[in-house]
Structure formats: structure tokens, C-alpha cells
């Protein structure tokens, strides 16, 4: 499918009061001459200034395919399929979720539903976070952690209300959960719109460009179910068969706890780079051309999830190295 014909969809997450509606209204008023559809939840904040606002129910469906964590947003499938039948073409679609929504079913909808995948593409998940309250929200609510874990961009809002050390602490916490996410400091969501729109963050090409802050494995978090990230690098080429065997078993058995994965892989005997990115058990993977000349070929693999330290990830990855 020609990606130019796919309408980009930006997902806005964040807790109530973080500033989602402020951001939404900024997008709608500053992008003159563009046609947007905005999908909002019925419990959301009011006052969205757009012609085309659609109410959604945040209805999460389990797919009947034997995969327990494979959930999709049924209402999104219905609404996106409907919007694609409009005579006037949309420039973009923005989905606002409630503060308590898990972003996984939203992202998975774009992997699972063929009609949605043919005509739209997930552009990025943008999480609006309140610099004052994020830390306590992360401690108290699973959903806040998930929204940070899935974010391509974290808009850290209301930074004028915290001091410098407080700001650093909250950023450190975000980076521990998600080293990929770009953190943008704002007051009143004042951000250049090209930093949050048309990012194409879910394309494999973008995986190649993202250089996460590689963090050492971290054992000092407070609860076992905290979301953290782990990354691995190897200059030794990997054995494709061993890797596929390990990785598919890992996702099948631990997919519920693994929220997001991304990787660039160097396989023995292959001239192309293999790139993948996934949400829970769902995966998009493809060879992405030759390794750049003169650069060291190395495999990089990043996991974001819960209980990662109990999955023997390091050992599993080491075992994939070609003998």
C-alpha cells in the first residue's frame, strides 16, 4: 500500500488535566487549511474547536485468535473505516484517549485490522504529562506508566510549576521507563507542531534513526511491576534461526509484560540490516537495506516492559550469537 495514501493518525494520551485539550486546540487552530478529524472519548474535556469531532467509546475487543494480549479498539475500527469513506480527504486524524486508557489496544488496532492498516497509519503516540503530578501518577496508576512506555513523544507540560531538580527527577523517571521517547518541555503545551505531527514514528525506517539513551540494567526501582527498559548490543553477528526461536517463544510466553520492542539486527550471512518493532506480541519486521559502508555492523535490541529482569533476556540474547 502506498504510504502517501494512508492518512496519518496521531494518538494523544495523558492523564486528565495534563493539557490534552489545550494541545488539541492548538493543533486545530494553528494548522490552517488542513482538514482534521478528531476522535474524542465521551468523558473527555469539552470545548474542541473543529468541524469534525467524533465521539468514541474506547471499546476494547479481544481478538479471537488465541492470543490473550491481542486487544484492539473496536470503536476505532468502526470510526476509522467510516471516515475513510468520506468524499473529502482528511489530512490527519487525531485520537484523544481518556486518562485511564491503555495505549496498547490503540496501537495494536493498526497492526491487526487490515482495512485500518490499508488506509491509515499510526503516526505517533504523544503523551501529555503534567510535570507537577506525573511522579505520583506513575506510582499510583498502571495506566500512567503505560502511557509513558508507549510514547514516541512525551510533552512534559507545566514545567513552570516545578523547580529545576524536580524537573530533572521527573525526566529521569520518564527515561527509565522509555529511553526512546523524545521529551519536550513546555508550559501550556507551547510546542512547534512539527515536533508532534507527521513523525512516522511507527515506520521501520524511523527505528533506524532512533538512538535511545542506552541505560545500564537498573535494579533500584521500587516495585516489581514497575515499567522499565533494558537494551542489549552485540558486535558478534546473530544466528537467525536461534534468534527467531528465542524471540518468538519469548513473545508468546511473556508478551503480556513486554510492552514495546525495537531492534536492528545483524544476522550471519545476511547483507541486509533487519529491523523490527513490536507492541506486545505483534511485530512489524523487514530487511531494510544494506549496512552503511565503513560502519560497524552491530545488533541492538531494546525492551520496554514489566518484570524484564525475570525473563533471562541477557542470557537469551547471548545464546543467539553465532558460534
Amino acid at each position, binding site marked *: 500500500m502506498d504510504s502517501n495514501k494512508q492518512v496519518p493518525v496521531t494518538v494523544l494520551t495523558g492523564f486528565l488535566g495534563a493539557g490534552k485539550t489545550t494541545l488539541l486546540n492548538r493543533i486545530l487552530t494553528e494548522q490552517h487549511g488542513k482538514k482534521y478529524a478528531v476522535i474524542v472519548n465521551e468523558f473527555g474535556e469539552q470545548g474542541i474547536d473543529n468541524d*469534525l*469531532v*467524533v*465521539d468514541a*467509546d474506547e*471499546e476494547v*475487543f*479481544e*481478538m*479471537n*485468535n488465541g492470543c490473550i494480549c491481542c486487544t*484492539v479498539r*473496536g*470503536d476505532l*475500527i*468502526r*470510526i476509522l473505516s*467510516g471516515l475513510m*469513506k*468520506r*468524499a*473529502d480527504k482528511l489530512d490527519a486524524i487525531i485520537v484523544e484517549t481518556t486518562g485511564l486508557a491503555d495505549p496498547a489496544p490503540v496501537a495494536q488496532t493498526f497492526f491487526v*485490522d*487490515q*482495512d485500518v492498516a490499508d488506509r491509515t497509519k499510526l503516526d505517533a503516540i504523544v503523551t501529555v504529562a503534567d510535570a507537577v503530578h506525573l511522579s505520583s501518577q506513575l506510582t499510583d496508576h498502571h495506566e500512567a506508566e503505560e502511557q509513558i512506555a508507549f510514547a514516541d513523544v512525551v510533552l512534559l507540560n507545566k514545567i513552570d510549576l516545578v523547580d529545576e531538580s524536580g524537573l530533572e527527577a521527573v525526566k529521569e523517571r520518564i527515561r527509565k521507563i522509555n529511553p526512546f521517547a523524545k521529551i519536550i518541555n513546555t508550559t501550556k503545551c507551547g510546542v512547534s507542531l512539527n515536533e508532534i505531527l507527521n513523525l512516522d514514528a511507527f515506520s521501520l525506517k524511523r527505528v533506524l534513526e532512533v538512538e535511545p539513551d542506552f541505560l545500564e540494567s537498573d535494579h533500584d526501582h521500587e516495585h516489581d511491576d514497575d515499567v522499565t527498559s533494558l537494551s542489549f548490543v552485540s558486535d558478534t553477528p546473530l544466528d537467525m534461526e536461534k534468534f527467531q526461536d528465542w524471540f518468538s517463544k519469548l513473545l508468546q510466553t511473556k508478551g503480556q509484560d513486554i510492552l514495546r520492542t525495537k531492534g536492528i539486527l545483524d544476522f550471519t550471512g545476511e547483507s541486509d540490516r533487519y529491523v523490527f518493532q513490536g507492541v506486545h506480541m505483534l511485530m512489524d519486521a523487514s530487511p531494510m537495506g544494506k549496512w552503511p559502508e565503513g560502519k560497524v555492523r552491530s545488533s541492538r535490541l531494546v525492551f520496554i516492559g514489566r518484570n524484564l529482569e525475570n525473563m533471562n533476556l541477557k542470557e537469551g540474547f547471548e545464546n543467539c550469537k553465532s558460534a
Partner: protein
Amino acid sequence: MKADLNKFPELNKTKFENRGKELRLGIPVINSVVIGNSIAVGFGDGTIRIFKAGQSSEPIKAHNGIVLCISKDGDDIITGGDDGRFLRISLNGEISEIANFGSRWVDHVTANNGSLVCTSGNNVYLWMAGRKEPKILEHESTIGGVAFDSKGRRLAVSRYGGVTLWKKDYSNKWKSSNLLWKGSHNKVIFSPDDRYLVTSMQENQLHFWRLKDKTDSTMSGYGAKVKSFAFVHDTKFLVTSGSNDAVCWPFDGIGPEGRQPICLPFVGNKLVTFVEPFPNENAIFTGLSDGSVFLSEIEKSSNTIIIRSFTESEVTTISVTEDGSSILIGDMAGNILWTSIWDEENK
């Protein structure tokens, strides 16, 4: 010189295209409904057009956004839109609003035997004959489809987790029972003999229940979602889209369980996107993802003729007039063919 991309080749047109009327509207065709020998078509810009033999069709502005669904109530067209309106439109084009749900979409409409139904979100709104106010039938999830049985005494409502079957008792009270099957159910239909209920699912499969004993089973093996399906020739076959073949499941006798479907192939390995029975014949019209449409006899697949050549846009509707004389074909790019089926000398 530049090629005009809006025009597809004029060569190799079928005789049906040559003698019919073709429109290039550029507006997605959503669906159509047959009322006698007229056909009403709903479009993605909120208009409908009514096609009658020998007359030109003018657009009628019905909804502000999209005509999401179209059906009929007697000789009237009924439509639902993303502007939240549920409309009745006469064949002369007069519009009256039955209900308005504001920002909530009206996703499905149907009618039978004096009862009128639309759905919005989780609710079915049911107008009984002569009543001004609808009865609201609530469900726990968004409704994927609605269908009345042939007499209008039972209403099937598909949803997440199965079908809610509403039945009118003799004191005209509606009572519900559940037919459960895990997953999200979309379109639902009764078989013409009312013995079976069939749904298409979010997964690439169909599910059916035999109503007398509530036994159920799945029809799977499709490469895509099954969006179009219909019973042929009373209840002899269920024809389905969602594969490169038109897949025809036998529903005569003991039903489809343990039996193989008849698969009607087409050249080019394109996805079947729409199927429509030929009234009173053991034959179907099949529309493909490249816009081509074929007529095939079900049990003699060699007997297939091409009705419309490709347009490079998926077929989204096919309707045949009640007398079987004319056919209307529409696609996602807004190309319409409205033509007679029979050659002059065979009429």
C-alpha cells in the same frame, strides 16, 4: 503528452458497459438498496441518487457527511449518517427526519412489516407500527449489525461476544435471548427460510447458528474480512466475499457442517469484495478489488461472463432490480455502471 489518470482505457469494454450508463463521480459509493425496479445509492459525501429505468439520476443531499447505511421501508428509502440523522426518503426524493442523535453516528438501519429500526452506539431504536416514540433496546457493546427475520417478529443484533436475538411475543413485548460466540460480530443476516442466522466477524471468518437447536459453527479460511455475504436461491447457498474466489457454502439439507464450499475462481487473483445473488437464479454477481464484476452460475463455474471490466477501485455495491432486468455497480472511487442485463433479442 500526459496520460489522463482519471480515464481508464476505453478499449475492451464489455457489452454491458457499452450499452449502459457510466458515471465517474469521484465520490465513494457506500451501498445501495433495491426498491422494485429502482435502485437508491448512498455516497461518501452525504448524497443519495435514485436510478430508474430511462431516467437520469440527480444527487439528493441527505446527510452532512457520509451516508453510513441505506435500506428500505416499503417503498421508501431509509438512511443513517455520520451527522446523527436517521432519514426517510421517498422515491421522489422527499426527505423527512425520523430521528436525530447529534454527534452520535447512525450506523445501521432496517425495517420490516411496519417496524423501523436504527442503531447508534450500543442502542437499538425500534419504532413499532403507528408509534411516534421509539423503544430503546440497550446492549453492552457497540452494535455491528441488525436484521429482521422474514416476518419481522425477530430482530437479530450482532455485537461483541455474539448476537442478541429479540423476539416479539403475542402481546407485542420484545424479549431477548443470547447467541454467544467469542469475538466481535459485524453484519448479521437471517436465511430466507429463517432457519439460520449468520454473522461476519472481526476475524476473517463467519459464524452461523441453526436457530431450532441453537447449534453453531464457524466458516473460516478467508484471507480478508468477510464484508459481503448473502443467501442465494432461497437458502441453497451462502455466497461470501473475503477470498480470491467467491466462496459458496451449501445450506440446503443438513447445512454446511462437514461439507466443502464451492469456490468460484476469477482470473487475476484479486480479492472478492462484493457478492450479490441474481434474483431467482442459482447464480451470483461477484465484484472484485480491481472493480471488475462477473456473473457466474454456482454449480457450473465454467459458465462465467464478465459484466464490467476493471476500474482499479474495489467494488462496494452491486444491486439488481427486482425483475432481474438491470444491474447497478458502484466502487470506492465513485464509478457507477447502470445497465440492462439481457440482450435486446432475449428480453
